[in-house]
């Protein structure tokens, strides 16, 4: 429980150290998020790794200058801004910008360039990213039945269906699901607080 009580967040620690070890930690935590943002921006698969790397470096370089106020600063907003700018620069320099716009309007993948749309990407992708991180972190603690129950639950199945499918008492299904949710929720809240 102590980690909740320390006032210094993970991101603050990374920023303070700013060495090879913290670089690794940093990339682990944010790489997936940047990646998913790039996908939503419509960056082609061949260019993604390159762009992720560039964005990470850009963020890493300016990290010490980033004005971080605990509980107030939205670090993730900044990450998103940097990533988006990288993305727009990439589109311009590769002269595929016009193409991109055309393609996007045809597919409807990228609604518009309006703030409304981009904010949505930022938000939705962040939520999914944190969930995934959280799950990765708690998964090793969970037994198979817990994982199975939770997986079926995530697929929208109800307690009765899960109990017959896994041959478990309804009560157990309920308890397992609640326990996983509880643990997961705690982790999500923790990560969001630490990394955002």
């Amino acid at each position, binding site marked *: *429980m102590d980690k909740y009580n320390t006032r210094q967040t993970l991101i603050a620690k990374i920023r303070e150290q700013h060495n090879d070890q913290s670089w690794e930690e940093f990339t682990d935590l944010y790489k997936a998020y940047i990646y998913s943002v790039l996908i939503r921006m419509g960056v082609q698969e061949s260019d993604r790794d390159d762009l992720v790397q560039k964005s990470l470096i850009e963020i890493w370089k300016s990290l010490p200058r980033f004005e971080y106020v605990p509980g107030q600063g939205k670090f993730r907003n900044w990450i998103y801004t940097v990533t988006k700018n990288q993305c727009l620069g990439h589109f311009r320099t590769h002269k595929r910008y016009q193409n991109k716009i055309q393609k996007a309007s045809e597919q409807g993948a990228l609604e518009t360039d309006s703030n409304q749309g981009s904010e949505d990407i930022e938000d*939705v992708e962040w*939520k*999914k990213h*944190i*969930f*995934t991180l959280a*799950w*990765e972190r708690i*998964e090793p603690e969970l037994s198979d039945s817990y*994982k199975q129950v*939770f*997986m079926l639950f*995530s*697929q*929208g199945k109800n307690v009765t269906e899960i109990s017959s499918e896994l041959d478990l008492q309804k009560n157990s299904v309920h308890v397992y699901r609640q326990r996983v*949710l*509880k643990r*997961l*929720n*705690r982790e*999500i*809240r923790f990560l*969001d607080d630490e990394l955002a």
Partner: protein
Amino acid sequence: MIDFDESFKKMAFEQAFTDKSDELLEKISDAKHRYKDGEEIGSGGMKKIVSSFDSFTDRELARAYPLSDETKVDNFISEVRISAKLEHPNIIPLYDIGVEEGQIFFTMKKLSGHNLYELIKKSNRTLSLNDKLEIFLKVCDALSFAHSKNILHLDIKPSNIQVDDFGQVLVCDWGLARDLSDNDTISEDLSTQEMSPKVLNLSYNNKIKGTPGYMAPEQISRRFGSRSQGTDVFSLGALLYFLLTEKEPFSGSNVDILLKQTINGDFIAPIKRATKSHISSALNAVVMKAMRNKRSERYASVKKLSDDIRSYLQGFATSAEEAGFLKEVKLLIIRNKVPFVLSISALIITMLLTTFFIHKLQDEKQIAQAAQAHAEAMALKSLESENVALSAQRETEASRLKALELIEDLQTEKQFSSELKIKAADELMTKAFINFRKNKNYLNATATVRMVLQLNPSHQEALYHAALMEMGAFQMHNTLAYLKQYKGSNDVKWIRDNCLKFVDASGRLKKYTWKETLALTQELLYSGYDPDKTYVAWHINSSIAQKFSIETSIKYARESMSKRNQGQSFKLDAAKLEDDTYKVSLAGSSCAPYEEIRHWPISDLNMSWTNFRNLSILWGSPLKKLNISFTPVNHLNEIWDLNIEELNIRGTKIGNYEAVYKYPLRKLIINEFCSSLHRLNDIKTLKELSLPRGVYSQDKISKLNKNIKITYYNHGS
């Protein structure tokens, strides 16, 4: 890694933030140590109490643990169960019960302030009688409530009553409490009782539950019956005893003696025990009744006990002045005509009368005390006045006791009959009217007799006296009206005959002269002695100044007073001063009572060498200079509130100087009985002082303010 649905991920993330209560619950269930114990607050026979901090609710509270052995754990649990039933502002609130590391505990409000024992015995704060009774009433309320839930406290004592700094009163320690509706505790109760040793040989052991000195006889021995509400009534009586006297009711030096005293009802009445303050016999009677040995003789309920205290408080609060109380009673009677209410008003009357007598008694006590202080100098004379004071004290004591009996009678009276009214009327007649009449308080005497007639319109004695009072007030037509209803055996012919002289054929009052008035009073005074005739004559004389001008009144007074002068010669000098007040001298004329000068605007009065005694005739006068040297006046209590600037009390027996210190005096001639000469320095206006030679020590005289001019007169000349 499970391949979660994209929308599920987002939803799950959002879910994590909507369920905050979950987080708090988690925190609470995770915390192993909710309470952090601090220092020990106290420890009794049953349990230990420590100060504790509740990290969940973030507050200080008190945590109680049972002392280890098992029977105590049972008691402990029973206390919790009982306390939990009692939610009342004057009962300590129980918060929670729990087990921690195998140890059972409960938590409750942490007490601030002091318990009653500390408050009275140890703190510097002195509680007024009113404060004490307020606290007591709150304890009574708490117990009334508990009794309504069939729960007895059984351990009421000063140290179990907590009074915090804001006056909140809490009844604590329900460790011995019994729930009468719970069969388990009753049977347990009985078994412990049976196991207890024969108390007569008084081998006390701890099977007797309670606090010796506050516990009732039935808590010691079964032969006094089983425990009941009356048991708490007894302890409340003992608590009231402690509050009033600031002493424990039983004075035994060890437990055996205390128990023996309790069984034998061997304690001194609070009224005889208190040294610091006077205890009214009404409150004394309450304590005595609550602490009766036989349960059946005590108050039947705590409510009855607190009702008695409440009526006492009510009476006390409204008896600040005489006129006020008469008015109050009058209003009550007019407002409510139901006999029940009449019985209450009669009760209040008697209560108020009681306090009135107490005031009177205190006056007399002061006189007696002053007389005592000068016993050496005035051995014979002071003894005489002391005897007077003492017999008066006995007299008032007796009438107070009678009043108390009446209260009791009225309380137990079950029939709401006219008998009550009649009884109240009789009581007013004998207790109030007679006194007012004797003191020549015509106004209150008249008001009282009218009240009596409202209670009982055919009260013969009252009709007769009402006729006399109206005649004295020169309301002859009223007198005649009362006489028509009067069928008693008193001679009324003289009343009727004299009144008829002053009314016309239609029964209206005719014009009359001062000579006719004088003729009437002379007739009343000198046609054979009759106390009633004399009384009417004094009454008429007393209001001369209200019927005629002062100049006429002077003529009347000269004629009237000279007739009864016993002095060497009669002389009445009266001169009008610039401010329309009068300078009057009756020096050397002994013709008491001096009713004729009542209500005169006298600012300067010389009554030296007269038999003047009744200062009440000076009530409300603009008196500035008063010479009462060589008169039988022996106290100034009745004219305490006049603004006298020059006073001569040489040759009097006045020993109580309290009034003297209060006057804005410029000039003062004192007698030989001033016990604290230095207090004359408090009279800032004092310029001239005359003392008897050789009575006061030079040492004392030298301590007087230097700006007071001191002269001497020869003592005994």
